[in-house]
């Protein structure tokens, strides 16, 4: 059944909270029903918590907006119970090509090795992502969504934080143990709390023209520097579902954003790319500028900022929505543990310790791409043009061509929740790394991990685990399960090797041989009970 998620309008409904003499208590209030807020709510509900989700609007994303959803994000959606719908609807792609003028200069395959359930990326309009998340959220009785509910202010109290909420029928208050502010780049909550996000803005403007057409371009990311059909600027072409194509034109700083939005200006630009015979219609047009910026800290007492509210990047790396969903899953399991009384409040400090460096990593990559695409000085321009010229016949220069270094999940290498290795290991699965997938006889490794702490054990039989708080579930991979040997290879596993994996599927400790004392100590660290101890 086809649903036009863009046109859905949700009803404002009066809540009994609005008639309550004292503010009603909610363990978690999530503000903003975008991809980040919805993912946070679903994750918390999956852990058995009651969630109140407030949104000041009554609709989903208007326009395609974020379209590239990365492998790790799809794996998170799998855990949230809606990965299949995203991948079935999305356009799967792994390959990007870069052109200078008309000549190809560089191409990359983001997922060169097989044995992963999910592709490097799917392209999917943001309104589908939000729609599928919303459908999932609505299937969970723990989640209550209130549309047309705008948070005006937050009052910290000893026993929680009081939110003043405005509705069409006037204001009311609720009392929350914790608040997740996923209310977007302009974050009214950030403003209401007198906080700032700071950084740099780039002097350039870009035009997004999403067009509906029949075209025989392959499902790849094509990026042109100075093509003949758009002299002097860059152009990005990308496929979306329903025959929609994202075309992104660099316009320069002096372009008039109002005029460039007009169809009589947009259509000739698109026609220059597609040819005079092309038949297409404009689906969504937007002229944008962008900044790389972040808040100094994302935790402010009982309030946690996530996604664009906490940090902003340029779009050339698909690091906005993807990093926001990673924020969501980072805070969700920690809040769930603390609210269930299985971990101290100190665990929540690790949200900053892990997600602030992750934001810096995204900002660094996104700034580097922007410096290449939008040179910020005469010297930057000279070196950019030199790289593009040399790339025609010098292989080394091709690797410097930067049209976007696309979103990869952060490894929390310096997280206080990690137990440093005492045993020798090779490979990528260091403490803090997001667990890699691998094919098993009966499915995929990541789908075996579940939503709690998991001890991933390689051997012929699962080990006996002690009773712990929170509980640790053993998942055993016998040699016969690891049909292609990829699990053992990716985890550098030998018989007896054991990994302790967090609810968000990041590695936090590993051993060559399981020891119950060490397991308990690692669990204490990973739940914030031993933070600061060596």
């Amino acid at each position, binding site marked *: 059944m086809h649903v036009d998620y863009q046109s859905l309008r949700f009803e404002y409904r009066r809540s009994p909270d609005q008639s309550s003499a004292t503010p009603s208590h909610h363990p978690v209030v999530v503000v903003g029903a975008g991809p980040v807020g919805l993912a946070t709510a679903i994750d918390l509900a999956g852990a058995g918590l009651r969630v109140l989700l407030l949104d000041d609007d009554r609709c989903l994303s208007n326009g395609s907006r974020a379209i590239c959803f990365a492998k790790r994000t799809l794996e998170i959606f799998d855990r949230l119970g809606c990965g299949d719908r995203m991948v079935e609807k999305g356009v799967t792609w792994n390959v990007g090509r870069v052109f200078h003028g008309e000549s190809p200069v560089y191409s990359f395959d983001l997922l060169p090795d097989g044995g992963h359930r999910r592709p490097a990326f799917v392209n999917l309009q943001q309104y589908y992502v939000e729609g599928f998340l919303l459908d999932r959220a609505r299937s969970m009785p723990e989640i209550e969504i209130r549309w047309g509910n705008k948070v005006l202010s937050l009052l910290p109290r000893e026993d929680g934080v009081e939110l003043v909420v405005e509705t069409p029928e006037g204001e009311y208050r609720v009392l929350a143990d914790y608040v997740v502010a996923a209310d977007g780049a302009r974050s009214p909550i950030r403003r209401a709390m007198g906080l700032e996000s*700071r950084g*740099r803005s780039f*002097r350039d403007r870009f035009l997004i023209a999403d067009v509906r057409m029949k075209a025989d371009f392959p499902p790849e990311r094509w990026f042109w520097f100075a093509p003949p059909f758009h002299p002097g600027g860059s152009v990005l072409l990308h496929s979306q579902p329903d025959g929609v194509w994202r075309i992104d034109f660099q316009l320069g700083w002096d372009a008039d954003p109002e005029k460039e939005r007009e169809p009589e200006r947009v259509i000739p630009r698109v026609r220059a790319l597609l040819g005079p015979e092309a038949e297409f219609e404009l689906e969504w047009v937007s002229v944008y500028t962008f*900044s790389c910026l972040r808040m100094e800290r994302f935790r402010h007492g009982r309030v946690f900022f996530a996604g664009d509210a906490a940090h902003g990047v340029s779009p050339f790396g698909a690091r906005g929505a993807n990093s926001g969903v990673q924020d969501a899953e980072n805070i969700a399991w920690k809040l769930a543990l603390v609210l269930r009384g299985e971990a101290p409040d100190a665990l929540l400090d690790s949200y900053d310790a892990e997600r602030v460096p992750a934001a810096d990593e995204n900002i660094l990559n996104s700034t580097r791409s922007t410096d290449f695409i939008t040179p910020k000085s005469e010297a930057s321009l000279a070196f950019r043009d*030199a790289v593009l010229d040399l790339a025609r016949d*010098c292989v080394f220069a091709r690797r*410097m061509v930067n049209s976007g270094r696309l979103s990869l999940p952060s490894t929390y290498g310096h997280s206080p929740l990690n137990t440093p290795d005492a045993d020798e290991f090779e490979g990528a699965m260091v403490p803090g790394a997001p667990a890699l997938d691998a094919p098993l006889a009966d499915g995929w490794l990541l789908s075996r991990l579940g939503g709690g702490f998991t001890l991933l054990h390689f051997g012929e039989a699962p080990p006996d685990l002690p009773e712990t708080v929170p509980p640790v579930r053993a998942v055993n991979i016998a040699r016969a399960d690891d049909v292609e040997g990829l699990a053992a290879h990716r985890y550098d596993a030998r018989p007896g090797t054991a990994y302790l994996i967090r609810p968000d599927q990041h590695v936090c400790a590993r051993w060559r041989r399981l020891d119950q004392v060490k397991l308990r100590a690692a669990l204490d660290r990973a739940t914030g009970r031993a933070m600061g101890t060596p």
Partner: protein
Amino acid sequence: MLNTEPNIASPDDFYEALLAIHQDLTPEQARAVDARLILLLSNHIGDMAVLRQAMARAREGIVPAGRDATIAVRA
């Protein structure tokens, strides 16, 4: 370790060749040649520590009198 001891057998020949590739060029064209040359030589050297030493020595004593075209933002 950046080698700043004499390493080119015939320094006068080198200097003449360096000027020759810039002959009759506008400042923009010369800038393009220099940028390509720096990239080619840097890749040939390859050692990031040496490259950083060279970059630091090249930048020494120059007080910035221009500015990059980015804008500080607060949101």
